[in-house]
């Protein structure tokens, strides 16, 4: 009466096309009809996982595997699920069992590679993914992951070459085009981005991310008109993308918002993370040195620093430049890639993947020193975040901020001076008077302030300001 093979085939089809609510009744029907329990368990767990009920999914798989420990589909599903749940060890064990069960299974090898990458064994991961690619060369995702591994190993050229070859092999694959442009952007290869993006446009398959990368590359290359055109196209394809909206605002296509959206900051710093330290050292990034001086002065006043909050900690350059504190350093950043590198320094007691403005509202601890080295350039209106940070300062504590300074060309009697301005790179510049006003509004005063060249490379010279703010005595 019931066509079980057809129901099964449609259930799998719906799962593949992410139609969980269509698949669920079919899986339940198969279950009620007494269909093969291992197949039902696999489908059930997949659906549970897709609906975010990962722990239940894992239990379901574990239970099924007890009766059939070598079931390949279940092993690979557990490996995938474990990766999603951040349990790389379990993922590696499950995928390895899958490889043992079926050495020529490309997915098993790929999953093992991904797990090993998470466990920090990039070279081994590369071996697994290379094998997966040789077993199933028609899968663009394997090529993309190999490029990711090269990036993780610092092999920028290899990553770009891998993706270039993959794009040539799979010219219709949007995801590869996007990955190739994004990777070249992360490598700082702006002419390469333009070349790849232009090829994608000519082929008629450029998506929003390709146009966005193209716009950012044009910005870096100083081609502002072309950057604006690229951002406008990106916005057409992804009209609700907050990062693209921000980039459009940065070239004057939209009204500038009060702050950069967190997604934009995250993407920006994820893109920079791979070569951030390298460039910082090469271009003589001066803030760590200034900061160390400030901490020494702080200690000289007879009060050693107990704890430190590093908002926008990035790769941990500041923490690496300071000694340990009794209660340690807490780092906050929106970029997971940056945080990954900060974790490797071992300098932080805590690291939070979070928006700085949100953290100072949420966390009620007090800090002797709070530093915001590259946070304010992503806020136009800085009043709220300064207020939040001020509330978190312990008595006698200090807030160290760096910002890009806006030098107004307006004649004072003809035009009201601007407080802040959104620049073409998506960062904000702030007028000196505005920092003073916002600080005062937050109950802070500027203890010392120095104008200098902080930023790495580019065309920025002598336009940054570091200020040390303390509470206004009541």
């Amino acid at each position, binding site marked *: 009466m*019931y*066509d079980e093979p*057809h*129901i099964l085939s*449609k259930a799998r089809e*719906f799962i593949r096309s992410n*139609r969980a*609510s*269509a*698949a*669920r*009744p*079919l899986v*339940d*029907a198969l*279950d*009620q*009809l007494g269909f093969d329990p291992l197949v039902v368990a696999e489908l059930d767990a997949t659906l549970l996982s897709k609906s975010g009920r990962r722990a239940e999914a894992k239990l379901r798989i574990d239970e099924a595997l007890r009766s059939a420990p070598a079931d390949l589909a279940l092993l690979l599903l557990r490996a995938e699920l474990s990766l999603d749940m951040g349990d790389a060890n379990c993922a590696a064990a499950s995928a390895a069992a899958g490889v043992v069960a079926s050495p020529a299974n490309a997915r098993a090898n790929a999953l093992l590679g991904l797990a090993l990458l998470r466990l920090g064994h990039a070279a081994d991961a590369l071996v697994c993914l290379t094998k997966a690619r040789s077993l199933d060369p028609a899968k663009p995702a394997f090529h993309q992951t190999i490029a990711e591994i090269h990036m993780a190993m610092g092999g920028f050229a290899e990553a770009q070459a891998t993706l270039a070859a993959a794009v040539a092999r799979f010219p219709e694959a949007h995801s590869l085009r996007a990955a190739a442009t994004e990777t070249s952007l992360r490598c700082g290869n702006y002419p390469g981005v333009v070349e790849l993006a232009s090829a994608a*446009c*000519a082929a*008629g*398959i*450029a998506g929003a991310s390709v*146009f966005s990368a193209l716009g950012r590359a044009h910005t870096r290359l100083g081609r502002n008109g072309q950057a604006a055109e690229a951002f406008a*196209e990106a916005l*057409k*394809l*992804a*009209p*609700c993308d907050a990062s693209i909206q921000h980039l459009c605002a940065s070239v004057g296509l939209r009204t500038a918002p009060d702050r950069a959206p967190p997604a934009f900051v995250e993407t920006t710093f994820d893109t920079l993370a791979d070569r951030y330290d390298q460039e910082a050292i090469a271009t003589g990034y001066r803030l760590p040195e200034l900061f160390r001086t400030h901490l020494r002065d702080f200690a000289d006043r007879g009060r050693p620093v107990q704890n430190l909050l590093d908002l926008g900690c990035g790769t941990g350059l500041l923490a690496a430049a300071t000694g340990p504190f009794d209660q340690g350093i807490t780092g906050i950043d929106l970029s997971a890639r940056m945080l990954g590198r900060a974790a490797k320094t071992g300098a932080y007691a805590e690291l939070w993947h979070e928006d700085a403005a949100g953290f100072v509202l949420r966390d009620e601890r007090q800090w002797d020193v709070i530093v915001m080295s590259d946070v304010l350039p992503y806020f136009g209106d800085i009043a709220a975040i300064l207020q939040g940070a001020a509330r978190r300062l312990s008595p006698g504590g200090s807030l160290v901020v760096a910002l890009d300074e806006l030098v107004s060309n307006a004649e004072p009697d003809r035009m009201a001076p601007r407080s802040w301005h959104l620049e073409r790179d998506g960062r904000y510049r702030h007028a000196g008077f505005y920092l003073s006003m916002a600080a005062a509004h937050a109950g802070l005063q500027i203890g010392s302030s120095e104008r200098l060249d902080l930023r790495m490379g580019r065309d920025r010279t002598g336009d940054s300001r570091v200020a040390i703010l303390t509470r206004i005595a009541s």
Partner: protein
Amino acid sequence: MTRQSRNVSFALRNIECFDTPTAARDSTLMSRLNLAIERQKAGHVHEARLEMQALAQADKGWDEPVFRLADSHRAEGDDSRAGERYRDCLMRNPRHHDALLGLAATQLRIGNILAAQTTLLRCCRLHRASSAAWDLLGLAFGSSQDCAEAERAYSRAQALAPQDMAIALRRVDAAIAAGTADTELIRLEQATEADALDIVLLTARGVLLDRLGRRDEAIDILEAASIIAPAASQPALELANALLHVDRNKEAERALTAAIALLPDQWLLRNNRAVILLRLLRYHDARREIEDLIATQGERVGLLCNLATALTALGEQDAGLAAATRATEVAPDQHLPWRTVINSLAYTPGVTAQAMLDAGRRAAAALRHEGKAPLVRDLDRNRRLRIGLLSTQLKTHPVGWLTLAGFEHLDPRAFELICIGTPETGDPMSKRFRAIASEWHPTPDPDPERAAAEIRDLNLDILIDLSGYGDRGLMALCAFRCAPVQIKWVGMQNHSTGMPEIDWFIADRWEVPVGLEAYYSERLLHLPDGYVCYSPPSYAPTVAPLPALRNGFVTFGCFNNLSKITPAVIATWSEILRRVPDARLLLKTHQFGDPFTAGALHQAFESAGIARSRIELRGGSPHRALLAEYGDVDFVLDPFPYTGGLTTCEALWMGVPTLTLAGETFSSRHAASHLSNVGLPDWITTDRASYCDEAVRRSSGIHALAALRNGLRSRVKDSPLCDAPRFAAGLSDAFRRAWRDHCSSHTS
């Protein structure tokens, strides 16, 4: 027809033969009654009734002859007499289940709802296990808006008849009316989790999700139900309906075909499939289906209108107009035939502006105008205005390509955009509309009056119709006066609407030049440049070199749909081809994917003396590929009287100019507007002779064509046609002008 109104006729048991316990009855009497019933079924109603009356007289304690008599009257629609007889029957047997139901049904039909409820409550008390009684009680309570009581009654009915699909679906409707849809949904979710094979409940769950506007989930559930129980018709039907709402027409056609296989006698399903085939641009298949239905069902209005649409789309404009006109004769007071006439007339050779205006007025007159006075809002002339965009086509569609860039560049501090009528989908242009809209109201109520009330409740200042009388066009709602200022813009904007409630008509000086204003019932809201702003796609290929340079001959082209290619157009193009003997003509439209249609067009050209080898017909293709095919065209020959709108813009973007023949009607001047807007007024002709002469002359100037083509994209890009900020400034002024005019008229 709603489920509730159907209920009255099918809730009653149709007893084929007398089956009441007969222990105390004379078998002769029973035989006579059965014979009378058979006579009634055979159409001998009068004789049957006489016999039933005689039997009732013969045995005054016997209820059944009286009940049969009542049923006979009810079958004939004589509710008054049927009611009397049911009462007689109940005098003889106060517990008679079917008489109680019959009486209640007649009471409901004559509008005596309270009496029906009383009868049914009595029936339910006497026959607690009767699902039909509880079901009809649900209907009776629903009729008096006692929604909670109705839901309770359906709940009892469903408990007694869990496999009755109709009761389950009526309970869904009742739950929505009672405001307990969420509770009902939870109940259905839990019940279907507990019994995954219960198709009635699974279908009810899908239907409820659909009613709640959760269409994707509804489709998922209904599709699952169809897969589990492929022999059940209701899931397939409901699935087709849900898919239609979100324009997933191919899937809808499959679902409907499955339902038709299960219910082959329901001609309406086949009509619905024909409508889907029209939407899928499978006009030839649609035509066959409709003609077959007309042959078996007669000339029904809907069928004639659908036939008109199919014929016009197949290039048989005169036949299309004839079918539409026939529909107006069958139902002169209905709106649908008249709007179909407009949609056929716009393509018909020789159509005049006056004829279009008259047709528009006639269609508008068939709408309900009884209504609502103009709405007056806060008459601040400079305040931020709430502007409604009324259309089912706020997506990748000519409406999107020609209006979106303008809307995107309106100042959001001056105008707030409210989108009405387009289902939420992943369509890229729909997402862009979504991004600029402060509100999105996907599906108006199917009932026009309620839909209009919903729109009025949005407190709009201006309502812009962007759908016209096209398929699922919503313009008719404007007849209810949904906003104080109502404007017609792109979207089947083929000429004046003729509707008194539409105040303004967006145009430009080329679309409606001096002298043609009189043929518009609306006031004209002229924009400073063209009346639209074209937003070219980022994936458009680069402009290819002039093909004549490599071919050594000219290739004329036209990528407009077949509806626009009339016999007069074919004759004109044939003359041009005779005068330019080495030239070719490349026609491309989705209809040519059908060999029958392509063959008919080839035949038409051959009849005009043009060899088949000189005419290339290409079917539909993805948009980028279509644009690339302009690389094979030297210049476009525009059809007439319905000229190319978006098609002209696309050709220009691909470096291909269009030679047009402008007429009187709005749609006969689209290409003229776009060409003027990009500075190519010399490509506009005004009569057939000069159109032919100009085509011949241009054909001899290959190098001039090449030079024009080389710079055309940048020329178009820099022209007002693509200058969205400039266009938006003009549009903004126009909206403000219309609003201030409204303010002035209400403050003076």
